[in-house]
């Protein structure tokens, strides 16, 4: 399979290698991997036995998969690590089954979800684990109470509130939110991963977002932010701003500056 052409890890994101070590893959790969290679190209090269391509995929996806797994109901942090490792093992094992017509991300999260489900089935047969949501974030919120840390604490607190609201969501609403907000999957892709109609994706997203919104508002009200005119996201009467760009750019990017006529000018 491979001839030995040194791989230029310095062109890859996070070029230091795992835990600061030289990549073990570098000795057996063929052509340099460019940082802009698509996921689909990387999985094809993984299927050919190119470990560096697999390593690159893992770098891209490890945090997202780990967090996705962590949010599955009834999974502890330690178990999440085990499952994430299993997801990547499975990915390596079935890399050759990826078909070019599909988008890698959709295929991969279907795989990740199936691994999670298998673990959950196993867990259900055992005593449930005690699961603490976002332990480090909760610690962050309370650990540092010295001067000048209020903003950090508030941020940690908001994160905890959202995290707890997410935890309270039914699993089917949580999944769809995570796939949308973290993985940037389209409605159709989410529908494919979850094996539900697109309309179901839309309604689950809507309900899930409403619940998180309510949690933020309640938190804000508890802190008296609403009374003081602040809210958790923005003022509903916010004026158009020149820097309003969506996270993916499109609504904001496409939107020309707001040219709404003055109220009295409107019929």
């Amino acid at each position, binding site marked *: 399979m491979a001839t030995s052409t040194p791989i230029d890890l310095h062109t890859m994101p996070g070029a230091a290698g795992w835990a600061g070590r030289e990549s073990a893959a570098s000795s057996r790969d063929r052509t340099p991997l460019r940082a802009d290679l698509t996921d689909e190209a990387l999985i094809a090269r993984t299927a050919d036995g190119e*470990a560096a391509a697999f390593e690159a995929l893992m770098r891209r996806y490890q945090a997202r998969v780990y967090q996705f797994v962590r949010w599955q109901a009834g999974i502890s942090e330690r178990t999440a690590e085990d499952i994430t490792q299993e997801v990547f093992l499975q990915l390596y094992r079935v890399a050759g089954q990826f078909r070019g017509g599909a988008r890698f991300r959709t295929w991969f999260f279907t795989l990740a979800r199936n691994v999670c489900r298998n673990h959950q089935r196993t867990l259900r047969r055992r005593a449930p684990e005690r699961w603490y949501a976002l332990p480090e974030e909760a610690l962050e919120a309370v650990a540092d109470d010295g001067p000048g840390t209020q903003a950090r604490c508030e941020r940690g607190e908001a994160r905890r509130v959202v995290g707890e609201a997410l935890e309270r969501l039914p699993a089917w609403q949580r999944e769809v939110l995570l796939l949308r907000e973290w993985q940037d999957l389209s409605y159709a892709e989410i529908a494919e991963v979850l094996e539900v109609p697109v309309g179901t994706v839309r309604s689950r997203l809507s309900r899930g977002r409403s619940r998180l919104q309510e949690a933020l508002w309640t938190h804000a009200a508890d802190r008296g932010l609403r009374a003081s005119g602040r809210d958790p996201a923005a003022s509903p009467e916010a004026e158009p701003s020149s820097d309003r760009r969506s996270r993916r750019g499109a609504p904001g990017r496409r939107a020309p500056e707001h040219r709404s006529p003055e109220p009295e000018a409107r019929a």
Partner: protein
Amino acid sequence: MSRTGKDPIDCDEAVRRLASWLDQELDEERHREVQRHLDLCRSCFSRAEFERRLRERIRAELRPREVPQAFRARIGDLLEGFAAQGRQPDEL
């Protein structure tokens, strides 16, 4: 309410489409119609802006963080093990 000759949709329709618009899930024509409405309607613009910022806030709060260092090392060991043994994916 704010529908004018230049406005292809009314506020109810704009609000109905808002979530899909923010998610980039409308076809080009419908997307443009919502955009046009938001350009003309201050009320709907404010609502859209609020929804967009709220989503960004939620995303920011829930953004994946770096995986623990110990876990990275664990995965690194795994990779090194593959490479050292010269395994192919289908040999696992």
